């Protein structure tokens, strides 16, 4: 076990997999010699050579498309999209191609392909370095989406994603790369070192896709979160002294419905929190699923604490970010209703 931050854990996952499997390659803008603008591939080119870790032209479309071709050949490419906000030029290849290949060929071709991308706000990146587009991919049949909230999960989930035989989108909440940000932007940042989930094995292990984690058991209400919002959720309920059950989804699709259902049936109340815009966000799907499955257990409407339906404004970052006040208000409302 070593203490790692998220970046180190993500780097380690790729390193472990490249060591074990000659078919694993890493590519993306600035990922080669430089090791990535967030350093997630640092040292890998030196270790595995330029034909396994390489820089690409600035073409997210080309990155996804060539990675699809590589996966069709039998490689397991791990492609980085420098910011999730820049994934859209590759959207057609992801939606029309990566997601459909196994289906349209009845399993003859499949694509063991991982797309990593730093995502989410909280670093004053303005509207084009802050987005959370996960819901767009959840609507597309054939794509899995994973969002880790801590170094241990990040490494285990990324290894599972690379080993998975289907395309996986792996969004990395960049705000928590260096520490578990809880939404209190006016307090000093805590580094990962103090967090139990920063203890990460150096070798190979997996955290299974499709399984959520109950990160705190509780009786009063279920709070469903993922990524940065897990830390916001824990801080919020602690600040408010609420005995909430907090679920860290980890995988967005396929979602772990059993864990959700069991928890909401127990608590009778639920709030979903995410940073993405509200309308059509993952909260909508979760809310719909929960009321479909737990209707007679629900004592209040399923609440949503989310980013607003606006772009992410540079200077109003802390007005946009769904922090402890927004989540706290939603929880309070769900408890009072």
């Amino acid at each position: 076990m070593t203490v790692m931050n998220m970046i180190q854990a993500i780097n380690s996952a790729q390193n472990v997999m490249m060591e074990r499997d000659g078919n694993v390659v890493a590519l993306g803008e600035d990922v080669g010699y430089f090791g990535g603008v967030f350093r997630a591939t640092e040292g890998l080119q030196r270790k595995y050579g330029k034909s396994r870790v390489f820089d690409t032209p600035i073409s997210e479309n080309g990155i996804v498309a060539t990675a699809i071709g590589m996966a069709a050949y039998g490689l397991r490419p791990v492609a980085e999209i420098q910011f999730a906000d820049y994934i859209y030029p590759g959207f057609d290849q992801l939606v029309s191609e990566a997601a459909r290949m196994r289906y349209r060929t009845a399993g003859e071709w499949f694509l063991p392909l991982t797309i990593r991308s730093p995502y989410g706000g909280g670093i004053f990146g303005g509207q084009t370095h802050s987005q959370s587009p996960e819901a767009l991919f959840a609507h597309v049949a054939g794509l899995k989406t994973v969002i880790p909230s801590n170094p241990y999960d990040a490494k285990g989930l990324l290894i599972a994603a690379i080993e998975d035989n289907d395309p996986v989108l792996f969004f990395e909440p960049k705000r928590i790369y260096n520490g578990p940000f809880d939404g209190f932007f006016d307090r000093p940042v805590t580094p990962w070192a103090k967090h139990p989930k920063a203890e990460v094995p150096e070798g190979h292990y997996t955290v299974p896709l499709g399984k959520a984690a109950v990160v705190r058991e509780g009786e009063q209400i279920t709070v469903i979160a993922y990524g940065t919002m897990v830390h916001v959720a824990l801080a919020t309920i602690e600040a408010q002294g609420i005995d909430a059950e907090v679920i860290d989804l980890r995988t967005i699709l396929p979602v772990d419905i059993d864990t959700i259902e069991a928890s909401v049936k127990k608590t009778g109340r639920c709030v979903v929190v995410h940073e993405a815009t509200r309308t059509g966000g993952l909260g909508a799907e979760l809310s719909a699923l929960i009321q479909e499955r737990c209707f007679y257990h629900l004592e209040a409407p399923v609440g949503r604490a989310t980013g607003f339906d606006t772009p992410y404004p540079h200077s109003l970052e802390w007005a946009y970010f769904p922090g402890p006040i927004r989540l706290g208000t939603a929880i309070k409302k769900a408890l009072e209703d």
Partner: protein
Amino acid sequence: MTIDPERRNRPALELYVPEPHARPGDEPDFSHIIIPAAGSVPRPDIAAQPGEMKDLAYTLVRVLDEGGQAVGPWDPRLHPDTLRRMLRDMMLVRVYDDRMYRAQRQGKTSFYMKSTGEEAIAVAAGHALEREDMTFPTYRQQGLLVARGYPLAQMMCQVYSNRGDKLKGRQLPVMYSDKAHGFFSISGNLATQFPQAVGWAMASAIKGDSRIAAAYIGDGSTAEGDFHAAVTFAGVYRAPVILNIVNNQWAISTFSGIAGGELTTFAARAIGYGIAGLRVDGNDALAVYAATRWAADRARSNLGPTLIELFTYRVEGHSTSDDPSAYRPKSAGSNWPLGDPVARLKQHLVVLGEWDDERHQQLSDELEAEVRAAQREAEKLGTLVTSSIEFPQDVRTMFEDVFEEMPWHLREQQTQMVDELEAKRK
């Protein structure tokens, strides 16, 4: 025209919109087409630098001359048996196309696309490539499957979306896929296969293997961003890939000028990216064969990609959904000055003394019979019936292959569907 207060005495700008040489009612007009003599284009060494062969983008590699002789440095000097096999495969594609077109018209399926006049492009490449090379075709290279001996009945089952369709009826007709025959899954989304082929070729290079990729794209589709990604990545990494542009001069109703074809050749794109480029008579099977081989040799020698414009003409409609007489003269196809690829290869064999009309007729009859037999076989496994729920496929298969393992939500939906179908059947 608005009043532009700042224009002063400047001329008014105008939007230019390209227009083809002839529209319905006009005589077909191909007088603008420049056709260099067969044999007139030099054949550079495969190790020549792209910068040394720019001229090849502005001419036309042709081997078969008007008299049916194979001439010049690009003559691939094929054995008559090979020529006869190529002729046979081209004829077979044409018979097959006619049959399937008619099947669609008879209501046996929803859609079909012919490759009439473009048979040489796929068939000759199919013969020039190695069997283990991967092709990334569009919907107009059925000839690649035929050249590689894929069973006709299986192609038909795909067209019929029937019980025998290995793709389980999921894809639109003609969107074949077969790994064993080196034929990559065709996408309904134009151009996506082009950069995928580059990625596949890069993977072969990453692994230190020797397999190369051959990709196809239409003239119209070169406008998509995927084209640019493909050529950019292929150039940067010197990917072992052949990038074929099939310039049949029409997209659906728009001519190649709307894709930039008035400004320069499509082969000239290669110059823009600094890679090797060739412009080839696509109705000349020998020229296609020779160019493919040359590009394949370059790719296999780590000399990088080649962009090949295959100049041809889409003789028939775009698909069964299209009526070309709405946008171009009716007889345009038959006036195409580079002739018919089947007739040209036939003539060559006849001139060589390796073929005659009788044998041709005999082969033609054989192929008709072969296609008819395959059709009977395929139709035993069903045809598409569009107003029935007597599906050739088990509906449960609809939920398979979305992922390797079926997640809970698809399992639930599968159960729902099965119940629904029972209700429908009642």
